[in-house]
């Protein structure tokens, strides 16, 4: 059995080494590689160990039970389809079955394995139920204080994050953030900030030497992040847009779009609570690509 940690949960995996390795690359708590070295293989990482009484996530092969009396939907994530069914705390995604609980969750995968999309949806649901609000947002920090930056695709989030990294801020993640509603802690599960060569050359040329030799599938440079360099509390959420002021309904909508829609009851209960707790941290006035750096610096430097 392989044991690793994901956010505050202890994962116990009986999957094949190949399956386990794929999940760990995306879901294991990242650790800082030694300076100048390539990232450590998941098996070599001394990830932060959760408390012995922490949440548990069990991963193993098995025969998923058939959905009975469940709601059904054809979902799409990253342009890839997945057939979903759910009923109370149970979730079926193609050939992956998940029992979602606040303290303990169990995932059973059929012999044929499951798609990356199914695993992603299932594990996101499990983390939601554990009190972690997923945020499609970049998070930057200084010391123990952090700010999240969200916005629709093309709003300038990636460029702003790159510029902040270049200014010496700690980037906790580029878009896979998790906020713990009970404690206010924010974490990320990204290993790298991805950026095209011309962006790095324009906005943070001093970082080019830090890029890994390998690139992502789009040919972007991979700049190592330091997500595990200490806990950070989320001070504020900034929405990148046109500088307009959102009304309360608009702020609620933005947060739901940023966190995504849960399916199972434990996840829905936790996220509804979490969105209510996060709402006061969302600045009503959106920021623009021209003033986002000033806004972040004001929040984190004073």
């Amino acid at each position: 059995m392989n044991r690793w940690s994901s956010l505050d949960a202890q994962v116990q995996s009986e999957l094949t080494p190949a399956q386990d390795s794929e999940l760990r690359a995306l879901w294991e708590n990242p650790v800082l590689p030694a300076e100048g070295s390539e990232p450590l293989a998941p098996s070599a990482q001394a990830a932060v160990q959760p408390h012995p009484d922490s949440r548990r996530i069990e991963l193993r092969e098995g025969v998923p039970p058939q959905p009975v009396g469940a709601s059904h939907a054809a979902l799409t994530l990253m342009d890839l389809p997945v057939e979903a069914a759910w009923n109370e705390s149970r979730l079926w995604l193609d050939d992956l079955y998940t029992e979602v609980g606040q303290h303990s969750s169990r995932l059973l995968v059929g012999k044929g394995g499951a798609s990356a999309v199914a695993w992603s949806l299932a594990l996101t649901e499990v983390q939601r139920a554990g009190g972690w609000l997923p945020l499609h947002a970049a998070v930057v920090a200084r010391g123990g204080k952090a700010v999240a930056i969200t916005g629709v695709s093309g709003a300038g989030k990636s460029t702003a994050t790159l510029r902040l990294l270049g200014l010496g801020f700690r980037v906790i993640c580029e878009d896979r953030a998790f906020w713990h509603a009970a404690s206010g802690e924010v974490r990320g599960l990204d290993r790298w900030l991805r950026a095209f060569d011309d962006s790095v050359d324009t906005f943070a040329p001093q970082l080019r030497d830090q890029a890994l030799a390998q690139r992502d599938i789009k040919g972007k440079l991979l700049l190592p992040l330091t997500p595990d360099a200490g806990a950070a509390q989320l001070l504020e959420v900034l929405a990148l847009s046109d500088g307009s002021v959102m009304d309360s309904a608009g702020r609620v909508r933005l947060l739901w779009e940023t966190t995504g829609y849960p399916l199972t009851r434990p996840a829905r209960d936790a996220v509804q609570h979490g969105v209510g707790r996060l709402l006061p941290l969302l600045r009503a006035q959106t920021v623009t690509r021209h003033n986002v750096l000033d806004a972040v610096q004001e929040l984190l430097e004073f």
Partner: protein
Amino acid sequence: MWQANSAVLITDLGDELVLMHPERSEMFSLNATGKLLWQQLPATLDSLSHSLEQTYGLTPSQARDDAEAVLEQLRTRDLVNCV
């Protein structure tokens, strides 16, 4: 018996309740009266009307009209149903 659509996502803003229908991506805001009714679901129309009578000092007729109006708005948006 009126009951809430279990898929609806709820955000409590204190004096306002924001409901989001995840499949339609539509939002609906409830004021204090709507919030009072929503939080009692599942419930009968009689029970909900009585609650408005007691809380706001309405006549039985006024309370029933108000409850029916709110429920109808919610029903047309697939936020509640009557079984």
